[in-house]
């Protein structure tokens, strides 16, 4: 059934209007008013996701909740929105995370509260916009538009080295987007329209496909981030305020993988197949090499940042393994599982790393000089038992313990990789060991043992806002870990269709034309 309310537009414009309202409260004299407006807007946005999910028809791969208005006549650019299963999941995740960071910001931020809340609401709107856009230029506008609030967020509320980190973040992502814009314009030139779906199955030569592939790759690889263009992330993550790190980890990194799924694979299937080896190697480097780097980190936020890169390696691996799998096994089922694993990995990583960034932020807030160094802590479990218990859960999810969210995605990707290539699966599987080493070792040094200094001894356990935050996140972790069915249900047909679309004709010919068995 179709809702007549323009839900997607509401999800984009409500936070923007909220941001304007929040800014109108002005200086910090009315900080509480700003806080509550932001919270109410965030809750309303999340509530809007309920009818969005319920009204979503999971039996079709067609775009739903379509809205289409001519925006810029001369260039045939449309304000065109619509979602499929992947976008639906990511939009709900965005609004969920949006509420979390705003809740977390209530206590943590004392200075320029209104502007702080406004940056988050704007970011939320922009990210929803990216996931919902069906027009290439609209997509690009949201894609770039989110840089401004993130740049301000890191720069205004970040820690000591924030100016360097924020400008590095901005220029890096700007660099990535440049070639994508030219690529989009080239595609639009070929297809005569900026509609993203009109790009699919354009008759492009292999040479064109490869050039476009690299143009898009740079944009998305920077966002994911993939080795070797990942260096902005540890800086941005470390210097950003806790909420900013959460948005970066939980949402922005997902945009890169989303880009692969929305642009590279269906638009450039031949190039993707030809260059899948490159993507697989880059993903494996991310998983192993970055995982090793994470082990030696002394700064907790940096450690989680590197762990994020490593985990996103699993997601990109899951996306690009499909070509090898189909080639080797001549069936779509394992390839489908690989792709599904990648998407679920995106969601589960949002919960795990988001929660850990929040936790580190809270720890640092309690420490006098806001130290994020592992060696500054020790025995936190003694003074903050509730926090320690929650953090254990998220650490285990990060490691990929069965029953938590982290397990599902990794397992699906690695098992399906096994069908095609034993060694790739084995190397990817090392993430389980590496993840356990860096996460649990950090956990041990920070939480266990005797209380090491007076600072830690004076820590107070979580307050009710923080507990609410963590309860929401643990619900997410368990729900996805034990019963991923509601997510898989909406993904199935979309991913099945995407998979068939992403196969070059040569490969697709050997395949059953009918993919209804996914439904």
């Amino acid at each position, binding site marked *: 059934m179709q809702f007549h309310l323009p839900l997607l537009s509401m999800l984009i414009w409500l936070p923007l209007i909220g941001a304007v309202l929040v800014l109108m409260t*002005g200086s910090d004299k009315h900080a509480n008013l700003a806080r509550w407006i932001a919270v109410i807007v965030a809750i309303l946005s999340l509530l809007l996701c309920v009818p969005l999910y319920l009204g979503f028809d999971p039996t079709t791969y067609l775009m739903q909740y379509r809205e289409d208005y001519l*925006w*810029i*006549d*001369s*260039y045939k650019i449309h304000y065109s929105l619509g979602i499929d299963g992947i976008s639906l999941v990511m939009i709900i995740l965005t609004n969920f995370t949006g509420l979390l960071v705003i809740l977390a910001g209530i206590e943590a931020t004392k200075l*320029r509260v209104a*502007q702080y809340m406004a940056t988050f609401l704007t970011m939320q709107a922009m990210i929803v916009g990216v996931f919902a856009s069906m027009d290439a*230029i609209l997509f*690009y*506008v949201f894609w*770039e*538009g989110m*840089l*401004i609030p993130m*740049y*301000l967020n890191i*720069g*205004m509320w970040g820690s000591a080295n*924030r*100016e360097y980190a*924020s*400008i590095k973040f*901005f*220029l890096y992502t*700007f*660099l990535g987007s*440049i*070639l994508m*814009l*030219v690529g989009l*314009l*080239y595609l*639009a*030139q070929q297809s005569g329209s900026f509609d993203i779906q009109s790009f699919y199955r354009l008759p492009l030569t292999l040479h064109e496909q490869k050039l476009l592939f690299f143009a898009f790759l740079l944009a998305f690889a920077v966002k994911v981030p993939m080795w070797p263009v990942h260096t902005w992330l540890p800086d941005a993550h470390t210097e950003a305020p806790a909420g900013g790190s959460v948005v970066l980890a939980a949402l922005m990194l997902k945009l890169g993988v989303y880009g692969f799924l929305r642009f590279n694979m269906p638009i450039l299937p031949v190039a993707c197949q030809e260059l899948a080896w490159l993507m697989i190697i880059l993903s494996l480097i991310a998983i192993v090499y970055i995982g090793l780097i994470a082990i030696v980190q002394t700064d907790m936020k940096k450690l989680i940042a590197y762990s994020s890169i490593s985990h996103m390696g699993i997601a990109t691996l899951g996306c690009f393994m499909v070509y090898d799998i189909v080639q080797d096994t001549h069936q779509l089922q394992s390839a489908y599982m690989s792709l599904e694993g990648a998407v679920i990995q995106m969601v589960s990583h949002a919960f795990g790393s988001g929660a850990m960034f929040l936790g580190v932020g809270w720890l640092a807030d309690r420490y006098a000089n806001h130290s994020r160094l592992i060696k500054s802590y020790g025995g936190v479990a003694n003074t903050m038992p509730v926090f320690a218990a929650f953090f254990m859960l998220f650490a285990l999810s990060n490691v990929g313990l069965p029953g938590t969210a982290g397990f599902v995605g990794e397992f699906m990707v690695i098992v399906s990789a096994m069908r095609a290539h034993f060694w790739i699966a084995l190397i990817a599987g090392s993430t389980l060991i590496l993840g356990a080493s860096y996460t649990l070792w950090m956990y041990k040094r920070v939480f266990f043992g005797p209380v090491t200094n007076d600072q830690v001894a004076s820590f107070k356990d979580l307050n009710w806002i923080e507990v609410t935050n963590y309860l929401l996140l643990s619900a997410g972790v368990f729900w996805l870990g034990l019963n991923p069915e509601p997510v898989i249900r909406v993904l199935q047909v979309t991913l099945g269709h995407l998979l068939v679309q992403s196969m070059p004709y040569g490969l697709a010919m050997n395949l059953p034309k009918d993919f209804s068995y996914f439904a």
Partner: protein
Amino acid sequence: MPIFSLASPELALLILSGLILLIDVFTPQRLRFLTYLLVQATLVVAFLLAIAQYRHHAELLVTFNGHYVVDKLAILLKLFIYVMSFASFAYAREYIEERKIASSEYYILGLFCVMGMSVMASAYSLLTIYLGLELLSLPLYALVASHKDSQQATEAAMKYFVMGALASGMLLYGISILYGLTGSIQIPEIARLIHAAPTATVSLALIFILAALLFKFGAVPFHMWVPDVYQGAPTSVTLFIASAPKIAAFGITMRILVQALPELHVAWEQILTVIAFLSMFFGNLLAIVQTNIKRMLAYSSIAHIGYSLLGIIAGPSSHDGYSAALFYITTYVLVAAGAFGIVALLSRTGIEADQLEDYRGLNARNPWLAFMLLLLMFSMAGVPPTVGFFAKLGLLVSLVEAHRVWLAVAALVFALIGAYYYLRVVMLMYFEEPTEANASKPVTLSWDMQLAVTVNGVAVLALGVLPSALIDLCRIVI
């Protein structure tokens, strides 16, 4: 018999500015603000007359023996020129009052400049083009020197005058060669006869004319005067130089290159490609190392001129190249006026807020002003959802259509370099606390200045969200 009614905006400007000059002489000192109001009213009258023409004349009309044209392009350019001049004078009011710059002369000289630009927009022969250009330039040299106690301003005016006279000379030389080749100075006649002329001589004329045009635009390698004049001139004059004259220069470029010399498009495309590339390169690179915001914006204007030339380069082989260039120039001028306007507003008696340092912690001192400057900076960097993005987008679409993908990529790479110094301004305003000297001084604006800045900043955002109307307008006229 010439049809005078076609030149009604220029005639109105001429008659009214003469009247104002007379009235001003007999106005006592305390009523001098009347001059300001009358000058602005004159611009409004000219604007309304141009609007009336726009509604009545759909087709191209030529008069004054083929030296003067009224078409949609001319009228639209005039409208933009009047609006931007209005804004420049509005921003300038407080600034020149505080500095005791002879204010009535200032506005009246400005009005003569507007008349010159107006003539440039409607010029249909090389002679009229030259006439308009000189009518613009001479009062402009005087304006730069209007702060006569300032050594810097005098030096800038001298430099501007000498270089400008050289450029005018080159233009005249080019015109004389063209006349020798074709026996005509009228645009359509030249276009008709040029193919019979020997290529080498035509190229010589083209190079002289291009050099003069690019000097007026301030493009590399004819850019040397730009940073010095922008920095040395009183900020209100810098604001004026950076805005409306660029639009008028675009007008005569269209007339000469596109309407008179379309036969030579291969030649001027090649020359402009080099010029645009160098302008984007040097403009953006040199802006990075500046510590004076006026100088930084001067280099940034060089880069932006490079961008707008891209549209003209793509013009012959794409649908919308010229209109993309016009859109780019118009919106850039809007943004530049806002940026220099804020620089002027932040200055106080005796203190110029022209160092980047002065912007440190502006968000703490006046959040609204900081936010407006943030919008302007992101627009210059070409980040959506500001209008600067759509300006660049239009150029890129045309470049890709004209099969110049590499130039599009280069333009974007330079935009990335440029983003750095725009971001640095934002960084200073938002990420740092005010300097001790500034912290205690609140930034307060009078209501009309507040209104001007707000209209300007919001326009940059609003045109970024809904650019369609202005893009269409730029397409219709070309």
